[in-house]
């Protein structure tokens, strides 16, 4: 293999693992936001549990994606070059970081597919994209997921409050705390069994494409291990900004609501994946939290935040696609173009991290507010009269 290909393959692997890491910290909220918000788990305990379960989940499932694009790209018509994969991954990473910065949950899978489609359009032409699959696999699930999970959570929370209405608040709170922990762990485990496989598939198919692995073979153990560790490390870092939005920004959650939300999420994810109607974990979990908010009387849902989330879900695919297309335009010029693409992506990522430091959200202050601002919140100066009083 020539050195240029080796450099590109190396960059694809590193970028894929970086995507896996961002996928982990972006999606910690899906499993643990409600448990952290209700106090069922301490923030650090929650991310340790989620990270461990993601790592375990990566080793439990060997069903690695057979195609990189999930059917969105006509792989019979277009050969997906490593440069396209790299550009797609960069599109997904940048979108994940941007949505994390503003504290909006969005689907990492949709971002990845959007990035890939954008890269393929620039690299191989529009005929490489299966637009019917874009509608059935991206657009429809984005609209369907919150409805299914929200309705399940709504019914669950109504039934719970009907049964426990004669119990004391203390009994209800402590009883559902344990149940919520179990259901949250189920969601974290299912995330590990699904999401780490995507990166394993990308790395394995890249290695096969350049002849470093025999065609039709499964992922090597080192690929499984590094992918599991990357998603677990990302999950452990905790996307605190997204956790704040999901746990506090949408609605005020009590432990019965948290239990209902996690039970509805776990059920919807499992049922949909087994009936071949794959839904986004992020959208399912967000929908179920809204459903629990609607299910309890006098518990308003912040529709402003919900609306922003819906817009983000609809914009994820095209936005990641635009970044993927720009990255591909530069990457396909050659090995130096590819290196430059990665360098620019690193710079953008550093700028986003720098911006996040203006108003950091972490395990210590995640429950202190329901808003995620980019700029530091201004603290009101104490008036002299008030001091005197």
């Amino acid at each position: 293999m020539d050195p240029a290909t080796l450099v590109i393959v190396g960059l694809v692997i590193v970028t894929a693992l970086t995507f896996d890491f961002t996928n982990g910290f972006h999606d910690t909220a899906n499993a643990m936001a409600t448990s952290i918000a209700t106090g069922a788990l301490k923030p650090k305990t929650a991310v340790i549990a989620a990270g461990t379960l993601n790592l375990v989940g990566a080793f439990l499932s060997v069903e690695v994606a057979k195609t990189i694009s999930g059917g969105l790209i006509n792989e019979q018509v277009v050969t997906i070059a490593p440069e396209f994969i790299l550009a797609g991954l960069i599109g997904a990473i940048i979108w994940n970081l941007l949505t994390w910065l503003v504290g909006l949950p969005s689907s990492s899978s949709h971002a990845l597919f959007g990035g890939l489609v954008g890269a393929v359009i620039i690299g191989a032409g529009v005929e490489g994209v299966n637009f019917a699959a874009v509608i059935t696999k991206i657009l429809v699930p984005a609209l369907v997921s919150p409805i299914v999970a929200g309705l399940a959570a709504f019914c669950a929370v109504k039934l719970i409050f009907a049964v426990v209405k004669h119990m004391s608040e203390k009994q209800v709170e402590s009883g559902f705390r344990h149940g919520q922990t179990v259901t949250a762990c189920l969601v974290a485990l299912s995330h590990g069994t699904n999401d780490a496989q995507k990166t394993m598939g990308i790395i394995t198919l890249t290695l096969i494409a350049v002849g470093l692995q025999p065609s039709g073979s499964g992922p090597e153990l080192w690929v499984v291990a590094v992918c599991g560790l990357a998603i677990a490390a990302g999950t452990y870092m905790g996307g605190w900004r997204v956790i704040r939005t999901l746990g506090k920004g949408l609605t005020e959650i009590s432990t019965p609501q948290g239990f209902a939300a996690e039970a509805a999420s776990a059920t919807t994810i499992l049922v949909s994946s087994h009936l071949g109607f794959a839904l986004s974990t992020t959208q399912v979990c967000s929908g179920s939290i809204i459903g629990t908010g609607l299910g309890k009387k006098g518990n308003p849902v912040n529709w402003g935040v919900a609306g922003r989330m819906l817009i983000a879900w609809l914009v994820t695919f095209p936005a990641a696609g635009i970044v993927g297309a720009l990255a591909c335009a530069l990457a396909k010029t050659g090995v130096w173009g590819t290196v430059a693409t990665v360098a620019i992506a690193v710079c953008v990522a550093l700028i986003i991290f720098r911006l996040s430091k203006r108003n950091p959200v972490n395990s210590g202050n995640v429950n202190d507010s329901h808003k995620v601002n980019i700029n530091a919140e201004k603290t009101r100066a104490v008036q002299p009269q008030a001091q005197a009083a």
Partner: protein
Amino acid sequence: MITPEIISFATVLFTAVCVASLISILYAWGLRMWADGSVDAQGNAHLMHRVISVICFTACVSIVLFALWLMIPMFH
């Protein structure tokens, strides 16, 4: 015309609502029965409530184990 996607959506919706409702009601009943089963002011123990509570919690555990079985492909 009913397309396969609409049938899939309806199946997912129906199953998710039913299962989420079932597990929630079982757990809630388990908690309620456990609380009702404690010894009252007259010193009466309500054993039947505790038995029903254990049955409800066992059913919840069974559903969780079934979910784990579904989740891990190497089991099936």
